């Protein structure tokens, strides 16, 4: 069933890619239906999941001589991300019902991309993980290069590709290190998690973790590896940005809790302070640079750096074991995983809204607008809700995530956490300011008759925000799945 979920989108992708005669409307709707089926499948998977531990496990020999197999399964870390991925891709599909530029290959590309994303979160084998990781980069490259609208789309796409590809090579180096250290040699994640082959090896563990951390940090991205992100977003189409920020960034953060922490526990503990510091700097730097942006889309891109910084803070703090409370550390990691889901939904909505903005006014520049709320009340409401969710207002999912991150990290890293708290004040300031410049005040734009959100746009964006609200008000169903898994991660790191 899990494999069906992973590979189902490839079928319509192949048909759409191969059969040039498919009408545009049919291509768009095929994409929507396929994504909707994925959401239904993932919901069924969620209902049937009997936690804790790995469910829906499949292991088939693949490259037995290299100790690699097709090994997939879900647990409390991956299930929420699979669900979030399916939802974000459906939102992208619905939003793209209005896509006029070669919708057939566009749909095919996104469906193929969805397979790589689902496959990555379900992978329980490092080589499988790596393959999906790289293929997702390739898919996103073509999205930005082929459908990007900036002057420098091709250049931004190449920067994105080379930079993240470099990261994936570092990741591969780390994986090979784990493989070599394991006895017997294996790429199997479950096995590597159980044995933690480099425990007590000193320098070797540190080197392997460094390679993996660099790979994941580029993807996440954290300071100072984030500079590929703003140009990629600026030039990517709205649906591409939503998937890139919503789903692809999570591959980096997911790697921390899935690979780095459980497989290299003592190296992780040794590096914990560094990770916390990088996290806090990402939080503050991302927020400050976002504050100075004049483009709404670049601003949202930089808030991703800020939001991913909270995750680093939490997972780093979970590595500071001495003299701290395991319950608090579990709360921190639960918050980090919740943040991955929450940020995926919120930032996808924000990027789709940025797409609406550019569609109406032809610009992302904040100062090109002003007083838009008079013309487009529903657009203003949706953006305001997304902005307040993004700044961590209680009642939305971001608060559930960030509250747990802060509360759980304070005991381990008091100074860093206190500094990171300023991040939510900065994001509040910058998002309110952006709302003001776009929507409030007297009319400052010259656009004739700005249309409010269209059905395809509101049906893509509103459900994301409803989900964000539901998680914010009724977080228990989500947290009940995440919490046992994060407690397991905390125990694995502390061993």
């Amino acid at each position: 069933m899990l494999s069906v979920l992973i590979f189902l989108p490839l079928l319509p992708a192949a048909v759409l890619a191969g059969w040039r005669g498919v009408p545009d409307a049919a291509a768009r709707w095929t994409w929507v239906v396929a994504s909707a089926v994925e959401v239904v499948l993932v919901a069924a998977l969620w209902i049937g999941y009997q936690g804790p531990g790995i469910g829906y496990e499949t292991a088939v020999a693949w490259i037995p001589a290299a100790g690699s197999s097709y090994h997939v399964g879900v647990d409390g870390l991956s299930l929420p991300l699979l669900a979030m991925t399916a939802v974000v891709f459906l939102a992208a599909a619905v939003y793209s019902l209005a896509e006029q530029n070669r919708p057939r290959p566009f749909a095919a590309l996104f469906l193929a991309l969805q397979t790589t994303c689902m496959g990555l979160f379900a992978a329980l084998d490092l080589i499988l993980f790596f393959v999906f990781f790289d293929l997702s980069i390739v898919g996103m490259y073509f999205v930005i290069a082929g459908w990007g609208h900036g002057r420098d789309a091709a250049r931004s796409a190449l920067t994105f590709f080379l930079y993240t590809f470099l990261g994936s090579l570092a990741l591969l180096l780390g994986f090979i290190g784990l493989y070599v250290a394991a006895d017997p040699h294996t790429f199997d994640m479950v096995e590597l998690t159980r044995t933690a082959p480099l425990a007590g090896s000193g320098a070797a563990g540190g080197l392997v973790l460094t390679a993996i951390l660099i790979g994941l940090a580029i993807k996440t991205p954290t300071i100072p590896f984030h500079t590929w992100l703003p140009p990629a977003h600026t030039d990517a189409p709205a649906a591409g940005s939503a998937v890139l920020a919503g789903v692809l960034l999570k591959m980096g953060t997911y790697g921390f809790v899935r690979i780095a922490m459980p497989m290299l526990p003592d190296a992780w503990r040794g590096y914990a302070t560094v990770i916390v510091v990088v996290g806090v700097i990402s939080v503050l730097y991302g927020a400050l640079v976002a504050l100075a942006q004049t483009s709404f889309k670049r601003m949202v891109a930089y808030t991703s750096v800020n939001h991913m910084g909270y995750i680093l803070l939490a997972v780093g703090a979970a590595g500071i074991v001495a003299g701290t409370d395991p319950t608090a550390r579990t709360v921190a990691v639960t918050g980090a995983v919740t943040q991955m889901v929450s940020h995926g939904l919120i930032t996808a909505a924000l990027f789709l809204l940025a797409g609406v903005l550019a569609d109406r006014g032809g610009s992302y520049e904040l100062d090109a607008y002003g007083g838009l709320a008079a013309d487009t009340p529903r657009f203003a409401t949706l953006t305001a809700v997304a902005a307040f969710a993004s700044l961590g207002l209680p009642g939305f999912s971001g608060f559930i995530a960030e509250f747990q991150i802060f509360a759980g990290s304070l005991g381990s890293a008091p100074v860093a956490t206190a500094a990171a708290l300023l991040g939510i004040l900065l994001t509040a300031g910058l998002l309110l300011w952006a709302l003001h410049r776009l929507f409030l005040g007297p009319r400052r734009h010259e656009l004739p008759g700005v249309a409010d959100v269209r059905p395809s746009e509101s049906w893509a964006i509103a459900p994301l925000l409803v989900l964000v609200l539901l998680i914010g008000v009724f977080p228990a169903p989500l947290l009940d799945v995440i919490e046992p898994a994060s407690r397991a991660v905390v125990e694995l790191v502390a061993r």
Partner: protein
Amino acid sequence: MSLLLWGLVGLPAVAGAALVIWRQWLDRAAPTVALLTATAALLLAVVVAIARPTASAPFLPSAPLTLVTDGLAAVVAITVAAVGLLVLLAAAAEIDDARARFFGLMLLFLSAVLLTVTAANLVGLLLAWEMMGATSYALIAHHWRSDRHADSGAMAFLTTRAGDLGLYLAAGAALAAGAGLGLPNFGLDGLAGLPAPWLHVAAAGVLAAAFGKAAQLPFSFWLSRAMDGPSPVSALLHSAAMVAMGGYLLLRTAPLLGAAGWAAGVAAWGGALTALVLGAVAIAQSDLKQLLAASTSAQLGFVVLGAGTAAYGGVTAGTAHLVGHAAVKSLLFLAAGAWLATLGTQQLAALRGAARAHPVVGAGAVVGLLALAGVPPLSLWATKDAVLAAAGQRSFALYLVTLAAALLSAAYAAKALGLLLTDPVSEPKRGLSAARNPVSVPKRGRLPLALLAIGAAVLGVLALPWFGAALGELSPPISPQKLVLTGLLALAVTALVVAMPRLLPAPGWARNWLNLEAAAHAVAVRPVLALATALARFDDRVLHAAVLATAPAARRLAAGAATADDAGLHGGAVRRVTDGARRLGQLARRPQTGQLHHYYAQAAVVLAAAVVLLLVVS
């Protein structure tokens, strides 16, 4: 029974959200929906206050969302629900644009306040606390077409959120100390029992959050800008609810402040100094709403002072003052709103004689101002004296500062009173718009004024000993002699100021609210913006440029090598080596086609090679 408690919080939330979401269709029905909901909330608050139910629902794994009602919560919930209903009644007569949005947001705000009052742990408290901030942002910026109003809303939200960070710290401290977030009982004894370093972190965090919301020094300036909102917003948010919740939080966590020692002192002195300094600010104001706003900060100072003197019955005194002030101040804000609607001004000079021109509103305002002045036997006379009694037990200096602050409140109330009551006929030269345009205040707006005036008059009964018993707290040691003395003093100051208003000074620092807003801009806003701009430039011109520069650098390195080669390293062995290097370089350049699929194929080859290598190694 727990369903009633959920209903108390949930009903306004659901109705408010529905009004905001479907505002296009509900604009006409909005006031009715809001009034029905607020009536239901008031009834529920009364029932809950009698039955004292508990409600709990799963929320975070370590902390359920738990609601409880004890004596303090019951009293404050009824106060908030009652004032909320009356303010909505007045707003139904006053607000005539974007009604569904306005009433929806007011209901959402009311829900957040009721959750704040009943929250049993830090998670629920923080949830409600920041919802209050966000809805207040939208309510203050009701007239969003003006840049200033939008800014005022943002300033209120950001300033109070700066304080809110303290609650995150407090939650982290509770968790770090192993206490968990779900506090064992409603007295917040969980926090008071934290071990040493975390106890102080929690106390500092709670103080910051409460001082921010209650507009205590140095956060007071946001309240001045919040006056840009419609008057009913001020009548609810800046009397009974949002600012009052800052005081309420400290009354609620008084055991924590006491356990931390220094924190009780900070609350006591912080409250007393705010009452004193903001009292001086209020005296200097020339705009009725600004005067009332400064007075709100000052009056909340008495409540905060009460929380800091819990050991001497300050919690009872502070709660009584909170409730009395809620009635007085929402009455006065509604009166100011009524005059703004009918006379088009809230400038004190232009309101000369307004109380005579509009007898109903005027009578309400006079009762409110006399109560604010502390004139016997009205409410704030007695409740303020209860606060004074507790302060006097703590230290004589604190008592003197508080007494001075009490007399200042008599002075600023009398300043407004004197102007409103001036006989317009006796001073015909002064441009008395009030007397010349006696547009009558809508009838529907009069009922809330009358009811609030009754509250403002009689709520002094809360200073009697039964109230402490009802709360389950100590009662402050009020002495009849001092009660009479302060009453006479307040009366004397009031009479003096009404007779000779020119005695009152209005120095620039007080008119401008101590220049706190400018200071916040200079100390926080501008440096942060400058840093942000500098970092953004660094990000583009240094960090990103460095990454992009790696490609040309590699190319230049190759070119440099080629130049060196041409420049004459033509010796036999050297030449052979360089030739070899060049050939290698050419070879290396071949795959660099700039075409992505080539790169990818190469990577695949590398990957395959790595796999083969691994096979050989194993």
